[in-house]
């Protein structure tokens, strides 16, 4: 007998990884986001730009399930977040790759061990993941630094390690909060292109950044966050996407 699916699961089956409708969110007494309307789809890249303190980081916290919406509806990976249990949230987090503005690592572990951590958490043995992690390390350009402890890496290398870790468990949704901060423009564009590549394997990618120029480095939907309000600036047409390919 077929299992009855919920409307949220239907959304996921239709490729909608995250849908926020009329969402307000914030910290303690301060409301930071107002009436957010947003949708992230599998195989697409969304770029959220805006000035500092506009609410971009809070928005990524909302998408990575670290914040609960105060009002409105937040459906992420087929689950209504307001009704999700702690275990459901934990399971959903395993399917979300998150690159923080200042990534947190276990500083006295090597870059390789840190990158492999999501796979260890998933219960895999080193022999099952060692090749995949090596490939990831190569993909983000960290081959020479993989065996160094994280505390010895430069800021850009730490970001690359964070990206590799976020991609390790092959997440459905990838979130990056200002991943180009502190990098040269060339390095920044390379990082965003790297993240945008993940759309090819069917992941949805959401990148928050202050740098408006990143809108040109991949086919994407460009959103603008100002004073906690989000608006769609531009959606790359399908023929433009083909031009990027």
């Amino acid at each position, binding site marked *: 007998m077929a299992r009855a699916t919920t409307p949220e699961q239907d959304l996921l089956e239709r490729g909608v990884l995250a849908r926020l409708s009329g969402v307000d969110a914030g910290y303690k007494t301060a409301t930071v986001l107002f009436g957010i309307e947003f949708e992230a789809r599998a195989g697409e890249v969304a770029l959220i730009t805006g000035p500092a303190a506009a609410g971009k980081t809070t928005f990524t916290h909302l998408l990575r399930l670290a914040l609960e919406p105060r009002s409105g509806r937040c459906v992420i990976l087929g689950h209504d977040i307001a009704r999700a249990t702690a275990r459901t949230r*934990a399971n959903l987090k395993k*399917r*979300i790759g998150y690159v923080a503005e200042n990534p947190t*690592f276990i500083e006295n572990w090597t870059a390789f061990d840190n990158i492999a951590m*999501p796979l260890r*958490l998933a219960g895999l043995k080193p022999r099952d993941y060692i090749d995949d992690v090596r490939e990831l390390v190569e993909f983000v350009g960290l081959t020479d630094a993989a065996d160094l402890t994280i505390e010895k890496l430069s800021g850009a290398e730490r970001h690359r390690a964070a990206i590799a870790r976020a991609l390790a468990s092959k997440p459905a949704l990838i979130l990056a909060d200002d991943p180009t901060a502190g990098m040269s423009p060339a390095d920044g564009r390379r990082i965003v292109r790297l993240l945008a590549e993940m759309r090819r394997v069917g992941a949805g990618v959401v990148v928050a950044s202050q740098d408006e120029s990143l809108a040109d480095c991949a086919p994407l939907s460009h959103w603008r966050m100002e004073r906690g309000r989000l608006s769609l600036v531009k959606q790359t047409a399908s023929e433009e996407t083909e031009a990027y390919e």
Partner: protein
Amino acid sequence: MINAFAGVERALFWTLVFAAFAAVAAGLAARGVDRVAADYEAARSNYAIVRVVAPEGASGIAAAELALSQAQQVVSAAPMTAGRAAALLGGEVRAEDLPEIRLIEVELAPAAPYVDTAGDLVAALAQGGVTAEVIEAPNEGAGAGLAGRVRNAAFWGSIAFALIMAIIVSLAARGLAARRREMVTVMCDLGATRSQAAGRVADEAAVMGLYAGLIGGVLAGVAGLIVLLLVIPGISFDALQRMILPVDLVPIAAAPLVAAIAAGAGARAAAGYFHAQAARLG
């Protein structure tokens, strides 16, 4: 990978060792006090001194000795010599300076609690035609006497001290959880549940507590042995073996287990709190 014996972890480990050492030492000391009090209690309950009032002279002492030897609870009775009396007085008086001694030392069979030993001895002497008074005898209900109270105080005192040390171990283990906060945050971000993240830190703390308890316990045991050798010079190995009962080893055996549980529980609680903080920013 994390080296559990470097930096803060090393300091924490030795804090746990010290707490375990102190708790086990208190436990062993309590056992020592218990043994001394038990011996004192046994000696007190087996001994009495009778002063013969009448008849006067050697005939009175002889009659009293005979009457006591026929009394049911008396194992042996012997008149106190001048030399023995001088020794009991701590050598402050010479034996030849003492007046006639009309005391009889009595060794008693173990009596049931709440038996009026002094009354029974006076009655037995009266039957033999001797008027006498008992000037030292077991208290009524000797179990409820000073020795009993000392034994109880030692036992409950050591338990209370061990509990305090367990609380210290538990609080110290929270320090380990604080050291692992970044790991808990990372695990939370990667989708680890609270029990997964806290469990990992708790396991590490419990292992540390286990080893610290083991080392602290063994060190306290060695210290106890040294104290015994100092207190009883020339004691043989066989005598030591006979002296140390299995129950004396309970504090040493319990230390690793209790330290592991206390450290694990403290670290789990703290790591769980850090996980909750990382999971919900709002």
